[in-house]
């Protein structure tokens, strides 16, 4: 640090020197700079993560009673048909919604990658569903899916395509497809805009060279766009899968897990058991059951990133 300041005014040289050493040392200074973030994250993220794993092994109630019961929660959950149904629902929800989000999102990204007027504005509009609070747009979907006043049913009846209003949220499978559609609606912008950023880094000369060699548009997409984009696709889809798998808001607002638990996801079931029902331990066990699935998704992302490093010649 300041050699000059030290020599000009030094009331207590030794103290000053000691302090200078503190500010000079990378490790100590690094520790000081990390302190605010690290203390918040350790206290409110790492510790609760551990506490959650512990709670999953107890039968703690919301009033504080209960104690360690080992794997008791998991043993009773394995026989719990609602829990098993929620795993099925979560997997169905995640797989179907992620695949469609990826397909439509990539298609939208390719469309947006064209040269066109008002491009910036169109991009800004496309991202709106992602910006607006999910709960509030989910309320709009709840209203769109209303049994009596659904605008979709009204239009379809008007066009003569159906005779009776569709009971979107009253039938198990209707409700499943309805919440999946709402999730897709919300997820497409994220996938499209992030993939668009990746598309914009592909140099047009690659396509020109391929065209000169006689490649069809489909071949250009399959042999240039997809391979170059694949590392970003891996990361984007990992995030997408992660957020879809742990989704809570859409279900809580639109169906609350009903009808007949047909749309309960693991996250909503864990909320219902832990907070509404007061069985903290059981709820935590359900939440913990999501962790293995999430680890698979993160490993997937990790290998996606590895491939990216390799493509960039091992930089950083």
């Amino acid at each position, binding site marked *: 640090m*300041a050699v*000059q*300041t030290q020599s000009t005014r030094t009331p207590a040289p030794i103290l000053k020197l000691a302090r200078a050493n503190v*500010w000079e040392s*990378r490790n100590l*200074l*690094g520790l000081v*700079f*990390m*302190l*605010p973030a690290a203390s*918040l*994250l350790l206290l*409110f*993220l790492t*510790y*609760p*993560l551990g506490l*959650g794993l512990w709670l999953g092994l107890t039968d703690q109630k919301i009033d504080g009673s209960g104690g360690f019961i080992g794997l008791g929660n998991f043993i009773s959950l394995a026989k719990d048909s609602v829990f098993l149904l929620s795993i099925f629902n979560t997997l169905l929800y995640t797989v179907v919604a992620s695949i469609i989000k990826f397909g*439509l999102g990539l298609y*939208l990204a390719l*469309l947006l990658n*064209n*040269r*066109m007027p008002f491009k910036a504005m169109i991009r800004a*509009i*496309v991202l709106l*569903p*992602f*910006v*607006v*609070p*999910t*709960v*509030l*747009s989910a*309320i*709009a979907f709840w*209203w*769109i899916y*209303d049994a009596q*006043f659904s605008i979709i049913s*009204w239009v379809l009846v008007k066009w003569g395509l159906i005779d009776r209003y569709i009971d979107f949220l009253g039938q198990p499978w209707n409700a499943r497809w309805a919440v999946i559609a709402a999730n897709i609606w919300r997820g497409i912008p*994220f996938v499209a805009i*992030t993939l668009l950023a990746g598309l914009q880094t592909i140099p*047009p000369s690659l*396509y020109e060279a391929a*065209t000169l060699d006689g490649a069809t548009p489909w071949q250009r997409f399959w042999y240039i766009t997809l391979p170059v984009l694949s590392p*970003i696709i891996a990361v984007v889809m990992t995030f997408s899968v*992660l*957020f879809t798998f*742990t989704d*809570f*808001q859409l279900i*809580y607002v639109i169906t609350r897990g009903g009808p007949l638990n047909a749309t309960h996801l693991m996250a909503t079931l864990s*909320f219902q058991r*832990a*907070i509404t029902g007061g069985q903290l331990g059981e709820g935590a066990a359900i939440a913990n059951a*999501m962790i293995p699935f999430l680890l698979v998704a*993160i490993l997937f992302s990790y290998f996606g990133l590895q491939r990216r490093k390799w493509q960039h010649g091992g930089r950083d």
Partner: protein
Amino acid sequence: MAAKTAQLEGMDYLASTPRRVVTLWLPLSIFIFVLLFPFYWMTVTSFKPDIELYDYSHYNPLWVVHPTLQHIHKLLFETDYPSWILNTILISVASTFLSLFCSVCAAYAIERLRFTGSAYVGMCIFLAYLVPPSILFIPLATMVFQFGMFDSDWALILTYPTFLIPFCTWLLMGYFRSIPYELEECALIDGASRLQILIKITLPLAIPGLISAGIFAFTLSWNEFIYALTFISSSENKTVPVGVITELVEGDVYHWGSLMAGALLGSVPVVILYSFFVEHYVSSLTGAVKE
């Protein structure tokens, strides 16, 4: 110049106008229609009087014949809506600034001080970003209760940084990396301390990154739901998303007009903020994924 335009345009000139209408404008307008329709429906519903709202045979539901402010009036003067808005603003601003402060320090330490093990800390920060609130809310609820923060703003201001700090730090690390090292070396030689370098050189250069991270963090905390739903119980302490869904739904009678007005009013502030900073928002969204 000519080469540059050719590069920008790529091979688009090969497509004729009718072809572009079918392959570009038609699918694009379908996408935009579907993505925007819920907002249109939300807006139309919030300005409809109750007679039009529940009578599709005499009135076309897609249009408002006699616009009314009754739903918004009811929301503002007969419910706690104004205090939900104030709470949401207070909590979002406070948690955003808290997270920005922590993230700037952390990102600078990881990216520039390069203390022993900084690479691993950076990796941990990224992993922390992948921990979803859905598996943290139960243990956090017990902690919030033990700390006596239940049903107070502090419960949210202190827990929102758990998902904001990892995101902001990760984003700012990218920005700090793009600032040339030489600038800092010059300042070091001139006798500046690390703190002076951070405040006078690195931060001013990273302002676009700070705005991006701040805007994104603000919208994330505005949208947050599960923590606010779990940690807050009294009506006047709720945030907008939680208040609308828990307080405006009374039994089996849904007042769709005021529900939609509540959703609309709760979305407008975020959308306005977003419209001013679209570029920053997009760069933070894509930046977090690209790194």
